[in-house]
């Protein structure tokens, strides 16, 4: 598993750091020129930029034929799927932390504290991008890396739809199980994060099933 993760890292680390640089630069521009209503986009795009290189791993593996060769190495098919999911999860976490970092630095510079609204924006971004991965990976295993660009974009839109689709469910849950000590905004954020992780885990099991039956 460590060998697989290291391969994933070596395959995309340059792109990852470039994308992170672009995300930081873009955030700076939005803070400088943009309206406060656009701040929510910063979180989503930072996490999205962190995640794109992780989805590229499958494309690179397929292009070089490594997706076939890796099956001859002492790893199981589950290990291979695990490495993809774990790597994607890691970069989403890094993207999330970077988002917080960006807002924290912005707060220091502009004297505005991180409020629940920012927390909600970031957790929404995490949910959407985690769901983008949850949708993209099973499709990549079924249709192959040749369609990876369309699948990545489709996954991002899928994540967005899942976000809006779950709004009423989460609203219902908050009404049914109120937590008076928690602000509603924070409650929503935590709920989205939990749902995001659950959907991601479900997607992992679906992908393992698909990948175990895949012929190369």
């Amino acid at each position: 598993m460590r060998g697989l993760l290291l391969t994933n890292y070596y395959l995309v680390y340059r792109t990852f750091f470039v994308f992170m640089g672009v995300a930081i630069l873009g955030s700076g521009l939005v803070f400088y020129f943009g309206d406060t209503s656009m701040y929510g986009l910063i979180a989503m795009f930072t996490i999205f930029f962190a995640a794109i290189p992780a989805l590229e791993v499958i494309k690179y593996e397929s292009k070089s034929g490594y997706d076939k060769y890796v099956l001859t190495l002492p790893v199981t098919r589950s290990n291979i799927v695990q490495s993809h999911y774990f790597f994607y999860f890691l970069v989403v976490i890094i993207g999330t932390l970077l988002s917080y970092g960006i807002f924290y630095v912005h707060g220091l510079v502009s004297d505005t504290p991180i409020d629940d609204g920012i927390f909600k924006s970031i957790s929404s971004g995490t949910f959407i991008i985690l769901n983008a991965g949850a949708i993209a990976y099973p499709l990549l295993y079924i249709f192959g890396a040749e369609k990876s660009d369309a699948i990545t974009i489709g996954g991002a839109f899928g994540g967005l739809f899942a976000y809006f689709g779950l709004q009423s469910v989460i609203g219902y849950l908050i009404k049914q199980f109120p937590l008076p000590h928690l602000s509603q905004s924070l409650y929503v954020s935590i709920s989205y994060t939990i749902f995001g992780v659950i959907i991601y885990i479900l997607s992992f099991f679906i992908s393992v099933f698909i990948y175990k039956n895949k012929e190369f």
Partner: protein
Amino acid sequence: MSNLLEIKNVRKSFDDKVVLKNITFNVPPGSIVGFIGNNGAGKSTTFKTVLGLISKDAGTVKIFGEENINKHVKIKEKVGVVFDAMNLPVHLTVKQLNKVFEKMFDSWDQDNFYRLVNSFSLPMNKKIDKFSRGMSMKLSIAVALSHNAKLLILDEATGGLDPSSREEVLDELKSFVSKSNGGILLSSHIMSDVERIATHLVIIKDGEILLSEETDKVLESYAIVDVDGGKLTLINKDIIVAKRNHGSYFSVLVSDVHKLPNGITPRAISIEEISVLLTRSEK
């Protein structure tokens, strides 16, 4: 010691097309099995079936006595694989690849890997996608020989190599077999390579094994005779392995030169001739 690889009655179809028809052969310890056949004969499908990359419809494949390599991951530690094209992650350098395989294989032999990399004159810090096909194949072979494997499965591993590199690689393969008493299943279109190192021959055509024999036995007992239709009838049918009609005469491959009738003189044979005759013969 039992066979390193045992393939018995393996069948595989893609939709309605049968691509492997009851394939049976073994790779014993200390052997190099030359696996010969035309493009599309079923060699790569056999490799994929052996390695569990595709499922089989029937039959058994045992590696070190165990079936289903996907369930016995540790077995893969002892199997080195080279496919017909470069299959390593191309964005990595040789140094990075070494670090990856160090974590992947319990018995990764870094010293041997770097010895082979140096011996094959491969650059350490260049990305693999900048390598020529020959360099890539040499790197794949270096990887396969660097984790103390007992069985090598090499699909066209010497393709794309210049004659000098091929000789170097073949020497390494021979040394692997003699030192470790391991075995190699080697497919190749380069007959001189097969003639040089193969101890056993397996010839496949249209998914069917036409010949599975020790190389020495083939070279000692088998023969090709060129005869007209009349003389053809004199040859015992039991020893006719294959025949090819050239119009005015037939080329006939026989399995026992000593059973040829008087007056029919065999000519000197090579593995290439046997292979061509078998793969282009009539039913």
